[in-house]
């Protein structure tokens, strides 16, 4: 029910969907209140977000910094909010620093009522096909053609195992 779905669309898009057992208002707020973001946007265990600066308005900037509890290094993301429609839509641009800067990712996130909860749909737009292909390793040369299928098979298995 709450499973994360990830698929490609066209040449440059990645679509992520996820159901939440909470109202669109709550899910929207959880994405824009820095005190709340800091509690969940942490990825794998062992990471914390010591810096969560977020100016939740159109044109506002954000900066998230992650640190690993034992590995002693981290990485960060910066971005700008392009459009905020209360409780239903967030449009923003972000890039990672690993420290090398990754290409800008343009992300539109929608929150829609779904039963008694919320369906979140994220639509990522990468600058060009090569970047997305590299991100997802799709459509690469012969011999790599099965990569994406393999990836699709591998990911649900990994997620099932994580449950």
């Amino acid at each position, binding site marked *: 029910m709450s499973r994360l779905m990830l698929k490609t669309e066209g040449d440059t898009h990645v679509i992520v969907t996820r159901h939440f057992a*909470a109202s669109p208002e709550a899910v929207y707020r*959880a994405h824009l209140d820095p005190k709340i973001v800091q509690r*969940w946007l942490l990825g794998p265990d062992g990471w914390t977000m010591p810096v969560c600066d977020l100016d939740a308005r159109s044109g506002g900037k954000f900066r998230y910094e992650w640190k690993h509890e034992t590995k002693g290094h981290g990485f960060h993301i910066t971005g700008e909010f392009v459009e905020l429609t209360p409780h239903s839509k967030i449009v923003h641009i972000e890039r990672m620093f690993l420290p090398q800067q990754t*290409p800008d990712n343009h992300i539109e996130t929608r929150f829609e009522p779904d039963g008694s909860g919320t369906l979140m749909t994220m639509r990522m737009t990468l600058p060009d096909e090569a970047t997305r292909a590299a991100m997802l390793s799709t459509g690469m*040369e012969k011999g790599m053609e099965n990569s994406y299928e393999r990836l699709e098979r591998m990911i649900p298995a*990994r997620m099932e195992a994580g449950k």
Partner: protein
Amino acid sequence: MQELAQLDAVFLAMGDPTRRAILARLARGEATVGELAEPFAMSQPAVSQHLKVLEGAGLVVSRVDGQRRPRRLAPAGIDAMERWLATLRAGMEKSYERLDEVLARMEEEPKRKKGRKA
């Protein structure tokens, strides 16, 4: 952390539009430096320089075919990105599981407050 270092090299290599175009061209099949230089209106040494960065990131490999040294996409760099995507996805799922808990508490809090008032 080697993972992050390799990924960093990959994104450094991909940070340049000419190198991304070279990767896109190689995605259609192998090509020599001369064949790669043609559509980019670039000198062969300039293309070789870009190929060096791509090879350093493990994205491109070459083979010897008589006088020719055709380049093609390398599985190693692609695998790193594939693993990264799997990691990203696993990380997202973990984050959202945490968000589920946070949301459950958010919905409870106002209810409790209302309950107290009533």
